[in-house]
């Protein structure tokens, strides 16, 4: 990695340069909230955004996605939808970039997913630093810092950006379109200061020590029943989560029945039929068992495979859940605090 300094006034140059080769997507206002959406120019960007309603995963594994088309007459697969237009995701926060890294483990690991891979390869990721909201606890997982998975990362030093350059594409972009200069000792000092201030500004320290083991040891704890009582089984927590990847697969026929499509659709382990098998047997028929499974999988299941928990502390689920169930609440409940009413 190498570093450059870019004056904030040069931001439109960067966006315009990107726009020559990519569809540029960035945070924009939607009412009082923010979403990632295509932008026409730098003036549409809201780089002061807190978080987006839906995470960037929508651009890599969309809510509904065709996997292939087939013809009914000869039961043959006719087409796969692997092509992906070049895109630049601009202004992604560290937690969300880290979340993509967790997705990569699943989709680019054993049995590589070609649809995800095509999008990942055709998408440039340009990160930006942020200010924690009260519900952010990325620092508890170490996902407040990001070391990989982006092309460029901009750290706001007030009048200028401290730019981390990680990919050839990122370097070329700066080279071609943006005036930058090398970093000085003063820039590095400012960068450290900004980082220190950021780390100090989290509202609450979430204690995650021994959490995966705790969740296993407390598998039969009454806490899960209490949480199950409250949960509405709406699945909102999984939909907004940048690290939830479960999906359903279904076939759809054309009106004349001659051809069809197989598509995948976001799914949630919080839905009642998620673990149902033939003859109505359901391995997780109760809401308590499903809340428990979601946390068990995110904290321990994923960790046992990839060495990291499947949460980046973005706080989206805290905003989405009508029943006040979220990792901070679950962690405290497991640590003996009970479920706050």
């Amino acid at each position, binding site marked *: 990695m190498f570093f450059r300094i870019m004056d904030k006034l040069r931001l439109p140059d960067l966006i315009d340069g990107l726009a020559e080769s990519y569809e540029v997507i960035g945070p924009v206002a939607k009412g009082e909230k923010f979403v990632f959406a295509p932008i026409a120019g730098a003036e549409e960007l809201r780089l002061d955004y807190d978080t987006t309603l839906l995470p960037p995963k929508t651009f890599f594994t969309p809510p509904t996605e065709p996997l292939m088309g087939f013809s009914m007459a000869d039961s043959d*697969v006719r087409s796969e939808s692997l092509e992906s237009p070049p895109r630049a995701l601009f202004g992604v926060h560290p937690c969300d970039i880290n979340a993509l890294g967790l997705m990569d483990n699943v989709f680019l690991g054993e049995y590589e997913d070609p649809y995800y891979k095509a999008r990942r390869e055709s998408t440039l990721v340009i990160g930006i630093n942020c200010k924690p909201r009260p519900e952010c606890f990325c620092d508890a997982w170490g996902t407040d810092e990001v070391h990989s998975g982006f092309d460029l990362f901009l750290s706001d030093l007030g009048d200028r950006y401290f730019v981390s350059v990680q990919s050839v594409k990122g370097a070329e972009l700066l080279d071609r379109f943006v005036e930058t200069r090398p970093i000085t000792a003063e820039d590095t000092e400012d960068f450290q200061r900004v980082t220190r201030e950021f780390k100090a500004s989290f509202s609450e320290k979430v204690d995650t020590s021994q959490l995966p083991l705790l969740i296993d040891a407390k598998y039969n704890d009454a806490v899960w029943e209490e949480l199950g009582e409250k949960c509405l089984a709406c699945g909102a927590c999984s939909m907004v989560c940048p690290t939830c990847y479960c999906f359903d697969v279904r076939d759809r026929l054309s009106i004349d029945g001659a051809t069809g499509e197989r598509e995948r659709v976001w799914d949630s382990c919080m839905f009642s039929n998620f673990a149902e098998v033939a003859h109505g047997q359901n391995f997780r028929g109760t809401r308590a068992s499903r809340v428990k499974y979601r946390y068990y999988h995110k904290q321990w299941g994923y960790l046992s495979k990839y060495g990291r928990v499947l949460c980046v502390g973005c706080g989206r689920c805290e905003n989405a859940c009508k029943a006040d169930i979220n990792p901070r609440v679950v962690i405290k409940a497991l640590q003996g605090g009970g479920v706050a009413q």
Partner: protein
Amino acid sequence: MSTTTYRDLGANPYRPWPARITSIIDLTEKEKLFELRLIDETVREAFVHDAGQFVEVSVFGVGEAPISISSAPSKQGFIELCVRKAGDVTSALHSKQCGDIVGLRGPFGRGFPFEEMKGHDILLVAGGLGIAPLKSLINHIHDERHDFGRVTILLGARNPGEILFRQQFDMWKHRDDFDLIMTVDTPDASWDGEVGLVTKLFDRIEIDPAATYGAICGPPVMYRYVIDEMRKKNMDADRIYVSFERRMKCGIGKCGHCGVGHQYACIDGPVFNYWEAMNLQGAI
């Protein structure tokens, strides 16, 4: 370990390969035995499976279902699936004719540790449709019989009409290289064999726990009781193998449906040894 054809061929793991149905045999009112032949020659030759692995079968326009391969790995060029009519895909499959084409992905999952089992006695316990994956193992053992000690097979079914592969097993009952005992919950006039749950048969058998590997497949309620009996006979937890059925949508560790405890049944299983399984929350 088995070869994984998708990796070998660098193919899209979601894309099914066309396979022709070359034979359909009615087994019972609900189960049919299908023989399938992959149409592409390269794929057909690359397709090698372990006993206990499964495939995803596609009936286009309806969907996919995971089905265990019931033929032995040594039988190449064809695969055999024993399918119970349970829902959308399996019903659509039941309505297919010989010569029709379906889609096939796989083989997927971890099967039974055949090589590790060699040189040992084997105790197999199947309930109902659980015989489908175990049949692959039984046939594999049969093909390499001299590598194994005593082989005991306990089969349970609800009633005589539901016993799968009955003809084959009736024949085997009289052989001395397999000790085979069948039992039914509810006998009929034709039945002169054992009556009761499969666990009851443990009184009838003798095993040398230090030399024996166990394999179990059947309805979820069966596992706990059969394992109890094996443990009473002093078998080690890591020498008892169980095969789990869970809802599956991808078969390759992505869709999340088949979670058992901290593992996925599709890639970490469906076969687990009991030591692993007893440490999987919510498995048994």
